[in-house]
């Protein structure tokens, strides 16, 4: 197994296990609590409206916004880590069909792995820090992933052209 393939396949398996472990923790300790919180705050908001208590309604909606913000990101982190892990493994398996030099493939594999790890991590950080840092991390790492997949696509196309001409 060459180094690029090892990075993609072992990195992918590790990331998938990490994503699943995170999902398990999330399902047991966070998801039901978050869903209950979202449902309860919405019910409180509308009950407050029915009882003509606007302060209670606004307080409940503020709680809904915060809980939903965290819930959406936690679900996204879980699904993106596992989805990206699967993509890394598939790219690793198909690496022989990428018509690029071994050194370049190794760097490309490292870039793809870094992007796949850091992009969901940046999203996860947004749940504890609403500042610009986590967003910048998520944007930069997703850009890295986009560029890596674009180069993989180019490598597949070159390989197809080479095999056609030979």
């Amino acid at each position, binding site marked *: 197994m060459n180094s690029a393939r090892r990075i993609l*396949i072992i990195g992918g*398996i590790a990331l998938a296990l990490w994503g699943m472990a995170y999902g398990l923790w999330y399902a047991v300790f966070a998801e039901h609590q978050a869903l209950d919180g979202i*449902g309860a705050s*919405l*019910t409180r*908001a*509308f*009950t*407050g*409206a*029915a*009882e*003509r*208590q*606007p302060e209670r*309604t*606004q307080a409940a*909606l503020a709680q*809904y*916004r915060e809980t*939903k*913000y965290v819930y*959406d990101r936690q679900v996204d982190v879980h699904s993106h880590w596992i*989805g990206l892990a*699967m*993509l890394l*493994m*598939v*790219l690793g*398996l*198909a*690496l*022989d*069909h990428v018509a690029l030099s071994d050194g370049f493939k190794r760097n490309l594999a490292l870039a793809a792995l870094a992007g796949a790890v850091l992009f969901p991590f940046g999203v996860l950080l947004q749940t504890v820090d609403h500042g610009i840092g986590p967003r910048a991390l*998520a*944007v930069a790492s*997703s*850009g890295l*992933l*986009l560029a890596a*997949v*674009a180069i*993989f*696509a180019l490598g*597949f*196309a070159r*390989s*197809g*052209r080479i*095999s*056609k001409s030979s």
Partner: protein
Amino acid sequence: MSTSIASSQASSFSFPPLGARRLLLLGGLGLILVGMIFGDIFAVFILHQNASSVGASLVAAAHVALDGDSAAVARSFRDVGSFLENRGTKVDTHVHMIGFGYLALLLAVIEPWIAFSPTAKRRIAWLFLLGSWLLPIGVFLIHYVGLAGSPLKSIGWASIFADLGGLLVLIALLACLVGLWKRLRSPTPEPQTDSLMSACAAGTPMLLTGGALLVLLGFASGASYAAFDLYRHEARDVADLSDMATGAASMDATGVDRALGDYGQLQGDKAVKIAAHAHAIEFGILAMLLGLFQPFVALSNQWKRRWAAVLLLGSLMLPVCVFLELPYGLLAGAFADIGGLLVVFALLAMWIGILRYTGHLDASISETRT
């Protein structure tokens, strides 16, 4: 394909009758096919009706709040919970079947690197497939079985069997990991002769390139959603709910209805953009995986390329048309369903091609024996 070709390829690929790779490949494609057909049926017959019911419950909650009936508000939100559970279990069935199918295909590729006996690998494959069917069927039944006859207070039999399915999958995956680890740790690793990962058949380059481009398209749409829509949608979500509640508190029925309309539009906009993003990436990964298995598809080169093109066309049509559902409505929805059907047909054709390959291979093996 002639039997001689099949037998010459048999020497370079591990693909024995009822072996782990064959079980995982055919079983995995079967899971993806059933998951996709279920997804199409769900989209046509359940998704929209269910969304209408959720919307109707929210309308009811807003109007009873307008009337000042706080007990009825709580009842309306309980109905929303039931509709969401129905929808959630259908989505989970669809997603898990396809996800397990992808995993099965991945395991089929790496099967020769798992350092166990063929019998042990076959048992692991059966275990994986059993769990992969049990979990989605269990999840599907959760909404209908509920807590009937369950020995537990909050978890019904359907959930118990779904969890058992998940456990079986997890055990099978761990066993595969142990097998891989054993090979990597082996002091004198046997040279690996399986050439499936480097074999290039007709259709392979098209599926790999097209798949990577689909993934790229999905990434680009996701990035665009995050950059231009996510925060706007989150702000509008709360603003619409606030308008509904404020309208109800001030007995402004027109304001409540306007906010409800805006909220429905917002949910539709969000749903189609996320679905387009997710489907483009999933179909891209599927195309790349199928590209690796083209040497097992016993069809002529021309037909291999045609089915690869059909699969890519459907894979592009579905997310693009889903994205266009908001401005073009049912017309775009119909084209999205046609895209899904094209993918199903192409997948079925490849599955039949692989079955033909196994037939040729087994016939050539029995000829050699006699």
